[in-house]
């Protein structure tokens, strides 16, 4: 089983939020109006966490893009009562939207708060609802959704590689956030492939994962010189 992983270089990241926008477009993520977003119902598959350190006048803002960590030992899939979230053959934590009963147990169980819920019937901007990405199913009200590492892109490149009777190349499968990042801060690849850029970066002295001590084995690495 491949271990698709993401490495986010926080030393390169400018916090521009292009990854969030690209993700929204790529995955047909609904737009939540500002009032609802204020109430904590914003739908982000790729989120951006901002924390402030220090006190005025020496304040430092820390920006940290946060996708789903696609844990190897995911706490969310363990608790799902209907197997609407599970770890698929590619080692990715997948969602089955039409099976989800909306109990939100997986959201409560996720230590990283990466899952989001469709509190209302999803809405899109005028016009945007005419140019959905056809590869990603549109979700309905009352189900949980989250970052899939753009699994539809993996399907696509796998089919192409199968037709051409060759193995997947490193860098052939990349999610939208990684592709768009203007600072080249998001690398993506297979950790099992020892020649991949991601494997090398994940072994960097700067690399760490969020709350490694929980033992859930997240597959998103952060690179930072600053000790987090």
């Amino acid at each position, binding site marked *: 089983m491949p271990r698709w992983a993401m490495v986010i270089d926080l030393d390169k990241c400018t916090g521009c939020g292009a990854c969030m926008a690209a993700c929204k477009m790529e995955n047909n993520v609904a737009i939540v109006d500002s009032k*609802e977003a204020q*109430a*904590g*119902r*914003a739908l982000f598959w790729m989120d951006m*966490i901002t*924390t402030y350190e220090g006190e005025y006048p020496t304040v430092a803002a820390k920006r940290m893009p*946060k996708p789903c960590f696609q844990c190897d030992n995911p*706490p969310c899939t*363990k*608790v*799902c*009562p*209907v*197997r*609407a979230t599970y770890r698929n053959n590619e080692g990715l934590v997948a969602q089955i939207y039409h*099976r*989800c*009963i*909306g*109990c*939100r*147990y997986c*959201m*409560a*169980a996720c*230590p*990283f*708060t990466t*899952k*989001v*819920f*469709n*509190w*209302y*019937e999803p809405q899109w901007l005028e016009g945007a609802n005419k140019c959905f990405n056809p590869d990603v199913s549109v979700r*309905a*009200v*009352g*189900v*949980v959704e989250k970052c899939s590492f753009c699994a539809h892109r993996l399907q696509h490149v796998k089919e192409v590689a199968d037709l051409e009777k060759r193995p997947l190349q490193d860098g052939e499968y990349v999610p939208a956030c990684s592709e768009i990042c203007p600072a080249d801060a998001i690398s993506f690849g297979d950790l099992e492939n020892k020649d991949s850029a991601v494997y090398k970066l994940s072994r960097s002295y700067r690399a760490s994962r*969020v*709350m490694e001590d*929980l033992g*859930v084995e997240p597959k998103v690495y952060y690179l930072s010189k600053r000790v987090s």
Partner: protein
Amino acid sequence: MMDKTHQYDLDQDAALYRPIYQTGRGYYVVGGIFLAVYLFSIYMYYAQIRNGLGVTGMNQPVTWGFYIVNFVFFIGISHAGTLISAILRLSKAEWRRPITRMAEVITAIVLAIGGLHPIIDLGRPDRMMNLLESGRLQSPLLWDVTSITAYFTASTVYLYLPMIPDIARIRDRGGKLTWLYTFMAWGWQGTERQKQVLNRAINILMVMVIPIAISVHTVISYIFSMTLQPGWHSTIFGPYFVAGAIFSGIAALLIVMIIFRKVFHFEDYLKQIHFQYLGTLLLIMSIIWFYFTFSEYLTGIFGGEPHEMNTILYKFSGPFAFFFWGMVLCNFVIPVTILSFRKFKTISGVLIASIAVVIGMWLERFIIVVPSLANPRMELPLGIYIPSLVEWALFAGGLSVFALGFMVFAKFFPLISIWEIEEGRIHGVKEVEERIHSYLPGRELSNL
């Protein structure tokens, strides 16, 4: 208590039959109010179905709110019944006789209400059957479905079986709905054989029902403690929840007893002594509850793990401080003060203590569910949760169903087990005397 004549007389317990045949105007007024609240809550639920869970106050990261709090709370109350009645029956406590029926009714009604709450909480209630079609037994939620269904089945049967002789009595009195009582009495004639079979069935059920009841609240606590979330991931949650459930259950039972004593004039049946004994039980549970709470928070504070501390400080001095200290006041300070002194341990004192405990236990559930979600491990802004009108309405609706359920039950069946009171008069007094003799030195009972 002891009736010297030992008469087998239908009218001896006339007070217990009266609510079935006589209905005052107050009944319709109170019933109407509860019905109105209930209908309003149905309307609100309809709005939730139409619009989605957005009409509630829940959000990310506070993904569970009132519905789950009330689910845990109501299921907790349900432990009043069956568990207490089973334990009292099993321990041959003679004073149980006028209490068991009400306790069992609480269980049946409240379980139905509580069991519905996770369904109210679903984003897609239309897909509820997925739980059966593609349910994963590895998920604690499925454990819940299983054990609550088992408990509901066992406790309704356990409510119904001891009712059969009473139903037969109502059938024999004639009057309204004879066909219904004839059907429900299953041809009960009160023969020795029938009594033997009934007693055996009750004995088997009361032993069975205790582990099932304990499993129910243990498994509910597992929903929380199986996750890695700070404040939830605790090994004592199982027994902590069970103790809390019995605690709130006794309090609810006392409230119900005091209300019906007043409304239906059961003063002759529910005496000072019953409230004294149950009050003592409530006092013990209050102290056990405090012990668990103390252990739970002390271990958290002593270890001082940062995420755990965030949650604890959120409760101790943060936005939830009012609820937390309110809970300590309601669950420990008030009941212990009232119930420790004979002077305060009157029926009205017990009523105040019980109301405090029910409120306190609701707060406890609230304090367990929300702060852990509002303080996720990730460095996110603190979660806020303000329940919406819909959630309040459904809470009020749940309480109304509880009251309505009792009111309807009282119009069809006696709230106090008539045959068990009779049995107490005829056999109980003698049996207890013999039993006490058998405890004392010098005399052996042949049949023990």
